């Protein structure tokens, strides 16, 4: 069972999930727990010989009922590949799975914030290579979404709506756009190839999207990650996080937020990682070697190459 302690100095929660220390770490391909359970083969987390998308309670949860939730989302029963290599139909179906999990987890009294995310690559601590993501149902509002709500106050309305307006007006950092979705390297990107994928219309969560918006979101996400892989001609590590409205607390907070997906890739060149060192950890100030406008130009070219 996880325990929470509040860091008074930083004003944020710290979670102690000490049972996770023993979790499965980079198993051999033959013992992947996210593969289907094949006849005569070792049992896995999914006791079926085939499946499309599976979601289950994490065996080594950071949160569990009645103190939140931790789920694993397996994108496919095929061990090899990535979100980028899924069929368009599967990627679109995944948007509906995310929506369904947001609906069910967000309705729980012990979940105040639903965070859907994917860690890709050993560079960001991945312990299983099988294509998958995770969902945490936090029993509190974490500090990053809380700061996003504070940005709404500072900007006098929905912050992502205002920032999207500015990015579209400037246009230098926009790398993808469709009728429903825009992707850009943000004006104040912290990571060299940080990208935000934002719904054009104000949508608090996946629940507010119409089917076309969900489809265009999946198309944009796949185009982006394929572009990432093309950028340095190698599998591109990233942390991908879906930002949505909080689901707990005051009704006013539940209706706020703007659905968008943020990518935090740790590479600053083809073979160099950005580390969070003195300034980032001690002062909370990122120091970047790359201008967002230059990164956006490189990503536009890579996305075109990968299309």
């Amino acid at each position, binding site marked *: 069972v996880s325990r929470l302690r509040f860091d008074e100095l930083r004003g944020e929660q710290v979670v102690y999930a000490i049972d996770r220390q023993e979790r499965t770490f980079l198993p051999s391909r033959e013992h992947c727990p996210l593969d289907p359970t094949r006849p005569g083969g070792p049992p896995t*987390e*999914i*006791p*079926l010989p*085939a*499946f*499309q*998308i*599976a*979601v*289950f*309670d994490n*065996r080594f949860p950071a949160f569990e*009922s009645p103190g939140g939730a931790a789920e694993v989302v397996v*994108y*496919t*029963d*095929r061990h090899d*590949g990535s979100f980028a*290599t*899924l*069929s368009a*139909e*599967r990627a*679109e*179906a995944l948007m*509906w*799975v995310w*929506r*369904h999990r*947001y*609906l*069910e*987890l*967000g*309705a*729980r*009294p*012990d979940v105040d914030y639903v965070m859907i995310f994917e860690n890709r690559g050993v560079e960001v601590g991945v312990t299983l290579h099988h294509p998958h993501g995770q969902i945490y149902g936090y029993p509190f509002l974490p500090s990053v979404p809380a700061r996003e709500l504070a940005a709404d106050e500072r900007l006098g309305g929905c912050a992502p709506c205002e920032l999207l307006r500015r990015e579209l007006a400037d246009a230098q950092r926009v790398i993808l756009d469709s009728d429903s979705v825009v992707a850009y390297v943000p004006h104040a990107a912290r990571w060299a190839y940080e990208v935000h994928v934002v719904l054009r219309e104000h949508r608090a*969560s996946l*629940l*507010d*999207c*119409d*089917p076309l*918006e*969900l489809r265009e979101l999946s198309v944009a996400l796949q185009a982006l990650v394929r572009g990432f892989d093309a950028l340095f001609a190698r599998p591109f590590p990233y942390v991908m996080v879906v930002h949505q409205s909080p*689901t*707990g607390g005051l009704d006013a907070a*539940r209706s706020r937020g703007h659905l968008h997906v943020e990518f935090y890739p740790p590479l600053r060149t083809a073979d160099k990682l950005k580390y969070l060192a003195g300034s980032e950890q001690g002062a909370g100030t990122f120091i970047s070697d790359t201008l967002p406008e230059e990164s956006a130009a490189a990503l536009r070219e890579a996305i075109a190459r990968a299309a």
Partner: protein
Amino acid sequence: MARKPAVPPSPGAAEPGRAKTGEPTGRDDRAAPGERFGPLAIERMSKDDGRALIVYSHEEPGQA
């Protein structure tokens, strides 16, 4: 913790068969046959150790 209202339904998409409240199902529950959510067919199971497993299926020309 006080019970909170269910997340309001989406105005944009029909979700036939969706639970009215979105409350979690018990681990021993199995969904009614034919549970759907948008284009997804949903099958709920319980693993040997009691953890929940949900399998989502959809129409697809070929396996991803």
